[in-house]
């Protein structure tokens, strides 16, 4: 393999993008990288350079190493905004699935004025009284009567759902959609109406409620 193809420096308006080969091992890359850095030193001089890595997903440790190699020869810092947008979705997806997997459990009921805000999913083992507020980046499940304010997918994820044994929230929000149950359909207003475990989800920009 052509050594020179493993690491390529590309000058951009706001700094340089370093394109790294995907297939090569990190050790191989480091070697070629150091050589290239030495070559480029005289070209870049002392000016402050913003660096973006692309072509290969690097771990924090690996990035640090490469930046370290550069820093010993030039005045570099990692660019604040990654110019290669292809990298972005991968990173946020990872963070998001980690967040949804982080669930907070609350044992007991929530009274009016009490609230739970979580960067993940929420499970309440009890009732959520009117005036109580649940806000989650992920899903919300209430093993009881949900009568308060509830907002799932609060960072914009409309694939999140809200479920309860008795789903009669004062106001319901999933991602950016806000709504409430119309009075004639609200079980609360119909005496002796049976309640079923239900869940609310988004379809075609509207919130639907279905029986579990």
């Amino acid at each position: 393999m052509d050594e020179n193809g493993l690491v390529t420096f590309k000058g951009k308006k706001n700094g340089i993008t370093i394109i790294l080969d995907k297939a090569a091992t990190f050790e191989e890359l480091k070697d070629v990288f150091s050589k290239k850095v030495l070559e480029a030193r005289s070209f870049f001089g002392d000016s402050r350079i913003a660096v973006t890595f692309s072509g290969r997903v690097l771990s924090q440790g690996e990035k640090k190493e490469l930046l370290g190699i550069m820093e010993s020869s030039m005045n570099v810092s990692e660019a604040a905004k990654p110019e290669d947008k292809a990298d972005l979705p991968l990173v946020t997806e990872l963070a998001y699935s980690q967040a949804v997997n982080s669930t907070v459990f609350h044992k007991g009921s929530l009274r009016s004025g009490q609230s739970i805000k979580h960067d993940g999913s929420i499970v309440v083992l009890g009732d959520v009284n009117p005036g109580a507020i649940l806000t989650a980046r992920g899903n919300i499940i209430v093993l009881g009567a949900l009568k308060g304010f509830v907002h799932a997918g609060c960072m914009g994820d409309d694939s999140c759902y809200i479920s309860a044994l008795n789903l009669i929230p004062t106001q319901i929000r999933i991602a950016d959609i806000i709504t409430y149950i119309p009075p004639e359909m609200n079980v609360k207003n119909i005496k002796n109406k049976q309640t079923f475990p239900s869940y609310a989800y988004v379809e075609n920009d509207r919130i639907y409620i279905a029986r579990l």
Partner: protein
Amino acid sequence: MGEVIVITSGKGGVGKTTTSANLGCALAAEEKKVVLIDADIGLRNLDVVMGLENRIVYDLIDVIEGNCRLKQALIKDKRYANLYLLPAAQTKDKTAVSPEQMLKLCESLKEEFDYIIIDCPAGIEQGFKNAIAGADRAIVVTTPEVSAVRDADRIIGLLESSELRNPLLILNRIRPDMVKRGDMMTLDDVTEILAVDILGVVPDDESIVVSTNRGEPASMDKSSLAGQAFRNISKRILGEDIPLMDLNAGGGVFSKLKKFFSKTMA
């Protein structure tokens, strides 16, 4: 060693002062040593409802500031053997007292009295915090209305986080005719949301208006239905098992109790 009970609600106008006055009188009628404390500084009412306002010389703030001795501020109710009132100040406001000062006051009163009843002001701010500072237990008063129940729920949440767990509930101003028509919440509707134990149910009664204006609490009036309810509540506080009055209010509790007790309490 006495017990400090705070009567609170969150919502204003649901009957805290009325309850405080009536419970005080009813407990005193049961031969207990009772002191009522009006914690609603700036908007005092307990003295008016008790008919003792023209005997106020010193008040709660005077005691806190050391302008007088505690004994000098206590007003002895001449209608009972051992009923006293510590009135609030009318010219100050709730920032004039701190929770620590209230706690100290309650501790010193506990040594002399069987029951110290604190009439808590409406709200959840400084006045409320002062009133609950020295309390051993709490009684929450609410009316069967959505807004009152919402505030009661908030208050119970705050009480629980202040270590005043298991507050008891008094459902005040219930109107059995409206409940029957389905126009008013039932006892079950209220307890379903609040999830606390019931201490008593008091019917809406014109005699309360009359008794307030006269300064003679209704529990002293044998013919008052509300007065009877308060007398029952005071007996329950003392440990007696009195069934809830048959008000034809509907809801599970009443019909269940009817089966157990063949005669209705007069």
